């Protein structure tokens, strides 16, 4: 058996650097903390280049089939690392303004990234769980880092307890699968389920528990209750983290567990996903309308987007998976921009977390109002923004596979959803600003946020490349 570590060089590098930074940071004064930040960003850039260098062309199993290396995983990892990089760019000023600019934050972020990458590449129930827990524990800590804020502590507590319940259920589901098949390896499980004809009860039982764990991670209804509270309570930079990169990892986990591990149970999980998808789209879009806190609003918006991406997965076709993956990546890009805008408008002692804080943004800064316009239109799914193509591709696949009624439900609900995105645009352009404080930013933030918006517009006009990348990595 070969012992080739090269394909997981990015993960090894990331782990090593995380440890080194943890040590280095301990010896730094608060004034020179920027060094940690730079090291962290350097690490992410290094990981990105390693990922790029080791980009696989086909599916290979390594380390006794514990880990799978394939184009889909590599592409998702690239986007995860890039997303985390941007999150950190957006976070820096925000954290500094709140005396919160600590090495731990970034190291936890790096470890969470490592967890996500592990989830993406796992081909074994235990490795999946390992990655998931590494991610979740890091996130709990990040939410709780603002110790003095009762809101943040409450959010962390809820997140932790509910997360623990979900983890427990996931683990229980895994143990049932192990009990029935006698293996933790996804390929073996797939084989065993396929051979078993007739009584699928045990598998169905295990699948339900797995699905609860997955749905919790995604924040799909009815396992979404934590989402709005955590999004609102956590510091905005952490919310941004939670709402973007982990969705990419969760998508990978979904693909590994359901498509690679339980293809024989397709009929069952398709229907579970239908329920999750419809409920998520409905609850997300409808309840977002009455939110006055923009972080909560974006939380419900996330829930609705999750509904859409599940719509792509439940078609159980290659195109559907590609569409769902495209949707997830696009969602991550839009989420970054959306929370980035909140960070931009916040400053020391002020959180721009209410919808009304966006009033009159056009008067204060036409450029950022324009970026926000792009983001909101994209989330609403208006052409020529990227979000339109994401919605279009999943809806088209749903129609092609005969889920016409689901597609109709999706379209109607996204029309309802357009209301709260358009409301923000209305406030930005047609209302007087509530406060006239100048917007303070740093050049890196300005460049990153502008690029974020323009990429959504630009890729929206030429969506072919990204779409082909998704199709290519799935097929």
């Amino acid at each position, binding site marked *: 058996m070969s012992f080739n570590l090269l394909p997981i060089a990015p993960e090894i590098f990331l782990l090593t650097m995380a440890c080194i930074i943890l040590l280095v940071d301990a010896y730094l004064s608060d004034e020179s903390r920027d060094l940690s930040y730079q090291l962290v960003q350097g690490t992410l850039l290094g990981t990105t280049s390693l990922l790029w260098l080791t980009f696989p062309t086909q599916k290979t199993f390594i380390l006794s089939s514990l880990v799978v290396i394939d184009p889909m995983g590599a592409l998702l990892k690239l986007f995860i690392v890039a997303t985390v990089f941007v999150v950190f760019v957006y976070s820096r000023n925000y954290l500094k303004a709140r005396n919160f600019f600590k090495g731990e934050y970034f190291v936890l972020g790096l470890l969470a990234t490592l967890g996500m990458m592990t989830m993406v590449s796992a081909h074994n129930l235990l490795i999946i769980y390992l990655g998931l827990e590494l991610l979740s524990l890091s996130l709990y800590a990040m939410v709780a880092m603002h110790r003095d804020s009762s809101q943040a502590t409450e959010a962390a507590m809820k997140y932790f307890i509910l997360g623990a319940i979900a983890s427990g259920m996931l683990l229980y589901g895994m143990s049932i699968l192990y009990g029935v098949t006698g293996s933790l390896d996804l390929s073996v499980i797939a084989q065993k389920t396929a051979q078993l004809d007739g009584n699928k009860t045990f598998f169905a039982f295990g699948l339900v528990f797995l699905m609860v764990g997955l749905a919790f991670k995604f924040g799909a209804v*009815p396992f979404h209750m934590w989402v709005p509270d955590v999004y609102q309570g956590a510091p905005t930079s952490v919310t941004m983290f939670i709402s973007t990169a982990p969705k990419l990892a969760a998508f990978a986990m979904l693909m590994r567990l359901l498509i690679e591990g339980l293809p024989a149970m397709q009929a069952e999980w398709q229907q579970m996903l239908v329920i999750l998808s419809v409920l998520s789209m409905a609850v997300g879009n409808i309840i977002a309308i009455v939110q006055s806190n923009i972080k909560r609003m974006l939380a419900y918006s996330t829930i609705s987007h999750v509904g859409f991406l599940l719509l792509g997965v439940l078609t159980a076709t290659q195109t559907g998976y590609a569409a769902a993956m495209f949707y997830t990546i696009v969602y991550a890009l839009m989420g970054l921009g959306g929370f980035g805008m909140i960070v931009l408008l916040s400053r020391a002692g002020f959180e721009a977390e209410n919808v009304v804080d966006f009033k009159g943004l056009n008067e204060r800064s036409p450029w950022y109002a324009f970026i926000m316009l792009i983001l909101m239109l994209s989330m609403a799914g208006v052409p020529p923004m990227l979000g339109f193509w994401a919605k279009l591709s999943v809806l088209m696949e749903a129609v092609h596979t005969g889920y016409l009624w689901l597609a109709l439900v999706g379209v109607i609900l996204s029309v309802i959803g357009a*209301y709260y995105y358009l409301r923000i645009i209305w406030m930005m352009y047609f209302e007087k600003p509530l406060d006239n404080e100048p917007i303070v930013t740093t050049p890196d933030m300005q460049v990153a946020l502008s690029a974020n918006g323009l990429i959504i517009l630009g890729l929206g006009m030429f969506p072919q490349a990204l779409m082909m990348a998704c199709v290519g990595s799935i097929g």
Partner: protein
Amino acid sequence: MKTIYLTIVLAPLIGAIIAGLFDVSRRVAHTVTIAGVGISFFLSLYVFKYIVIDGGAIFNETLYTWLVAGNIRFEVGFLVDQLTATMLLVVTFVSWMVHFYTIGYMHDDKGYQRFFSYISLFTFSMLMLVMSNNYMQLFFGWEAVGLVSYLLIGFWFTRPTAIYANLKAFLVNRVGDFGFLLGIAAVLMYFNSLNYAEVFAQAEQHKNTLIQIIPGQDWSLMTVICILLFIGAMGKSAQFPLHVWLPDSMEGPTPISALIHAATMVTAGIFMVARMSPLFELSPTALAFVITIGAITALFMGLLGLVQNDIKRVVAYSTLSQLGYMVVALGASAYGVAIFHLMTHAFFKALLFLAAGSVIIAMHHEQDIRKMGGLSKYMPITYWTSLIGSLALIGFPGFAGFFSKDLIIEAAHHAHEAGHLGNAGTFAYYAVLSGVFITALYSFRMFFLVFHGKERMDHHTQHHLHETPAVVTVPLIMLAIPSIFAGMIAIEPMIYKDYFGHAISFEHSPFAHKHFVSLFEFMWHGVKQLPFFLAMAGLITAILLYWELSFIPPFFRQIPAILAKKLSIIHQIMLNKYGFDRFNDWFFAGGSRNVGSFLSSAGDATLIDGVFVNGSAKLVAWFAGTVRHVQTGLLYHYAFAMILGLAFFLGTFVLYGSKLI
């Protein structure tokens, strides 16, 4: 040849673009547009010689395919045959003359360049219309001339009356265009093509096709198509009851009245019906409809000319009446005669309008003929050319109008005799016959009031009276020439010979099997007929009533006033133009405003906005407001929700398997 045809169309367009879109001087504006139309005119002359005189090849080609939808092709293509060549010549010549005339007429106007741009654009549109070989392009030209007409009627857009008039013209034409468009749609539906040649080739097969628009009612397809197309012509050619816009269109500058509202655009309907003659020939019902409408227009609009006092409006009602004559000719299957009258009328009516414009310039934009008089000695050129125009209009033997009008009456007589149109033919015959008397009367009423008799203008105007400059008088003279000779030259080839080839339907024409002996014979025959005596009677009546000659007892001059008083009801009806305007304002304009405000308040505001839009929004908001309370913020509620979800999934999938959905 293709290049020549393209140049004919594009030269005016380029002129219009340069004059209109670039900030050019007045000099450049009129130079480029006159050059553009001039090029078109000379090339049209060449084309006329090539096709009509030398019998050159008829051009029918598609130049550009705009789009293909299913098996329907939308194309730009030219059909240049004898009919087109004739129209090209008339349009470019009159347009060119009007361009020159405009230099003088619009001399002091601020919108000089704009005006030139518009009239060149008009020429382009009209050429596109007459040269098209398919219905799509025909419709394009049709709408484009309508647009320019709208722009030009409202040229002086600060005048409320002008805006009222152009809106009216536009809306009335919409009514006609609606029919026209439906007609084209019917053609497309049953013939599956928009190309003239392809449609005409199939027309015979559909002669007896019946369709049901209202269930249980069988209608002939050809009748439906032809009447719908003719409704379009009624709008554009101002036929009763869609004539109401034409008198008001006189709000536009006079050169426009001459070019668009007398000589060319309004004749588009005549041209179109002649072009569609293979279709109209298949439906006697449609022809009866056509001839009736034409006859009503010819007679009743002429009557209104008797009571008008605005010099341009008199000519405008005369135009309406003459268009009616052309339509009568169409209805009598004498398409060649209609085109013949179209041509002669274009010359003499443009002449009359331009002469009226010349008078208006001299009178410092006074248009009321009651305030004129005795202008002949101040404006000899205008006087003589007006006389020629008027004589041509009333059909004085030898002048252009004599031949064409005589033929129309003969065609109507033939329709009356033949009886294939039923009573419509008889009605048309008597209508056009009495129209002759009326035409002579109102034409010379105006002529005498303007040029003879006492000078009724104020001193200041009288002091400044003088002949208009050469740019005005030269076009008058140029138009006077064909007003005299066009009839004599064209009558034999155009009417009695196979002039139009296959361009228009000829075999059913009343003149198809007759022979032309000689010009003199024709005239000699003409002066022995009733129409001539009627025209002379009209002329003599006008002399008695309006020419203040010393040997005519002054009593005669009282007659119009006495008649107006005695017959005050009729007089009032005529002054109110039979009440069409008032009826339209009340019924159509007021009615549609009421329907609109009802739909706006009940349909849009209450039902759509209130129930559907706001109602559904309120429902969603209420639902969201209710459901959000599920999100209590309490941890154990959240955990409970998760457990419930788990229990639901377990219950569904473990107990029932995958048979749920």
